[in-house]
């Protein structure tokens, strides 16, 4: 089993994602350079956070057209699990692998703070070890993380169970106060209709180690590894 962590110019959570996989789970993971034209040989692909290509033009907009993304889109369409975190989520929306878009936070300010997430869909490769409705704690850190979709896309996401994570309060309620950035329906992460492509704004790559105050993020990476092992078996 081998997992790729894509390195765009300006990725800055690439090292954190790689360590979460290598140190947190001791799985084989390596960087995949943005200029590569093939994603062959990888069982799963992680698009890390950061400011790919400086996020100039629009977050994730230029990365969506990088050579490696063409290969990743093809792999995703063939069922390879693809996981976008923060900027990675923005890139996935820009490529069209995921619906909707991420726009400026409601406050118009960058926000770095802990949030509570509720698992709304535990059938994706990244959530299968978690119970539905269980709560996870991890940080967000973004300026443009408010999830937005037009009415029909939003209804589709909700009806198909494609909402994977929602911002909630300590009691699991998706209140307006628990919504840090003004995301529609408190959406923190979604998947594609097939479920193999998942994007989320919060950072499991910063919550996989007891020393960081939360290990909840590790569950997502562990789910992926379990999924890959069960496919291999």
């Amino acid at each position, binding site marked *: 089993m081998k997992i790729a962590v894509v390195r765009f110019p*300006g990725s*800055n959570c690439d090292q*954190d994602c790689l*360590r979460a996989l290598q140190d947190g789970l001791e799985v084989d993971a390596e960087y995949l350079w943005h200029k590569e034209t093939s994603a062959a040989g990888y069982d799963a692909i992680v698009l890390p*956070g950061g400011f790919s290509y*400086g996020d100039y033009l629009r977050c994730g907009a230029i990365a969506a057209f990088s050579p490696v993304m063409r290969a990743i889109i093809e792999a995703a369409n063939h069922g390879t699990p693809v996981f976008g975190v923060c900027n990675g989520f923005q890139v996935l929306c820009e490529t069209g692998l995921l619906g909707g878009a991420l726009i400026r936070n409601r406050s118009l300010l*960058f926000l*770095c703070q802990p949030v509570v997430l509720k698992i709304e869909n535990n059938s994706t490769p990244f959530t299968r070890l978690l119970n539905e409705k269980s709560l996870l704690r991890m940080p967000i*850190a973004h300026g443009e993380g408010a999830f937005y979709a037009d009415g029909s896309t939003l209804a589709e996401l909700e009806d198909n169970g494609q909402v994977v994570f929602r911002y909630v309060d300590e009691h699991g309620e998706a209140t307006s106060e628990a919504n840090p950035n003004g995301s529609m329906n408190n959406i923190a992460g979604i998947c594609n209709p097939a479920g193999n492509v998942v994007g989320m704004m919060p950072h499991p790559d910063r919550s996989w180690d007891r*020393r960081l105050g939360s290990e909840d993020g590790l569950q997502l990476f562990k789910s992926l590894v379990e999924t890959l092992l069960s496919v291999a078996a």
Partner: protein
Amino acid sequence: MTPTITPELVHRHGLSEHEFAGIKALLGREPNFTELGVFSVMWSEHCSYKNTRRELKKFPTTGPRVLVKAGEENAGVIDIGGGWAVAFKMESHNHPSAVEPFQGAATGVGGIIRDIFTMGARPVFLLNSLRFGPIHDEGEYGRKNRKLIRGVVAGIAHYGNCIGVPTIGGEVYFDESYNGNPLVNVFCLGILRRTEIARGAASGVGNAVFYVGSETGRDGLAGAAFASRDLTEESRADRPAVQVGDPFRGKLLLEACLELLASGAVAGIQDMGAAGLTCSTCETASRGGTGVQIDLALVPKREPDMSPYEILLSESQERMLIIVQRGKEEQVKRIFEKWDLPYSKVGTVTNDGFMRVLDDGSVEVEIPAKQLADDAPIYEREAAPPPAPESIDISKLELLDPKRSLLQLLKHPSIASKNWIFRQYDHTVRAGTVVPPGSDAAVFYVREANRFLAATTDCNSLYCCLDPREGARIAVAEAARNLTCSGADPLAVTDNLNFGNPYKPENFWQLREAVEGLAEACRRFGTPVTGGNVSLYNESPQGSIDPTPTVGMIGLIEDEAWITRQYFRDQGDIVFLVGEVGHEIGGSLYLKAVHGRKAGAPPRLNFEKELAVQQLVRELIRTGIVKSAHDCSEGGLAVALTESCISGSEKIGATVGAPDFQGRPDIFLFNESQSRIIISVAPEAAAQVESRAEEVGVPLVRLGEVGGRTLTIDAGGTSFVWSLDQLHDPWYFSIVRALAHQDL
């Protein structure tokens, strides 16, 4: 058409007649226009420290852990054991931030990060120490200060967040003396193997000199000279002297340089910060004992028709000079092409000791490099103490309602929660932040080295205004105390000396007093100064800033179990004050914020007492019994207790008092006597604390216990009760509300 050299032109370059005579003697001829520009930046205060160098020599700079000393390279390096070392430094970007807060602050962050990776270290975290005028006022200054803080915070966030180095702590203070002249001091720390320290020397005659990074433009022309002048109403016209930062390019440059350094191709590396290409060429040559020859025609440029003067003095950001080992030139090409960054071989290392700059083959600048870099004239400025501050007669001080006074103090932005600020900084990237902003010191787990580091910045400029020597001593003591409270052993210091125009005798006197105070305290705490920065000419039309010798201190926490936070944890825990109740009210924030008086002698620091208190607290932390530790500083005991109650994720109350105290309640609550730390321990551990304090002869006061939904303080027989919500609201929302103000 190059201008002819006239006395007027020399004067406009900030060079005195005496200095110009020195330049002519050094060259044996008149300098040309470009050379005049080169001297003006290299011999500016910013680059040469000509007014402060004598003073800076007073700092202790050596110690068993010091691997690179102050002044030797771009940043000091300290051994942290296990084969690992840290490079760290603090630097100011005050002047640029005053005229263009967003870019000024952003490029400050970019510059300090480059200083750190120039040492071969991977930057792991940032701190910043900020000073602004009041932000709650209506009127012109209030509006201006709000604009400055919004811009500075956004600028720091812009650069730090994008480049992916977490901003995990620091301090923010507010005082009228910073009206229109904010202080932006940024600190960066990086990690490296102790055997892999990179040097900024042009070594190896014949080695190629490469220019890498962004193209040179006209931005930031002569910023170093700009930073060596007073800020005036006209300073806004200097906006071309402020550079524009590109954190994305900065990130690429960081990764490319670290990759190149790891490849073994680099003989020397130097960032182009202040004075850009000029400074990096002559400094590398000076350090290498060599010469450097470059041709400006080979420099990547952003605009056509730039003159040699403009190219040499540009402070365009995200550029480095790299001296490449002979035969390894292909490595540079391979790595910089991989990262899509411009690079160009611009020259070679020579053996004649000259900084020689060609303009498409013809010699434009020819100056002995060592003399240019190191032999700026050194001055001893006139020093004279300002009038003694107004003294305070406590018996004549009106006794106001202490209950209200505490709420006023909590609302003061120097004390109020900085959540509006640090939420805008990515403080969790790099997955190592163990104690986030908001406790006494930030704690970071450096994964590469498996080490826990603590770091803090401190300076009470109110004390320094009233007594710069005592204020500076206390700045060091408080930094060490903050580290102690987090469970760390203090290791070393970087300092940022922010003062007014040194030609005013009282400013120079303040500087000298502060330096001597810092030096003495650093010796006593065993924390050598490994580098830093001097920022003078911090003047606005209203006058000089309060002297602000900011101390950045780092510490090491040997065992994860020792990491301690400032807030109370469990009901029933016993609260102790390690140290005495105290009585000194001079220079306190209480006097200033509640009584409107910036007066009195600041508290006195007794080193023996301070060291003993810190030693005891560290020792108790290491026995595993200390559940919280918080130092008493601005606002005294009452503010420290409040913070212990409300700054954690769960608020919890306390009932405390000192039965033996006799005197005014406001003195009990708000005095700022030094050498005091509040700790809490489980009830069964209380006896151990008491007996150990007695054994080592450290005063200890059993204040009370943790619990309930109020903070109740018995201050000399009178009891004051505040609900936790009543305390939390002004503290948490003061800055948020001030900045929600629509300044249209």
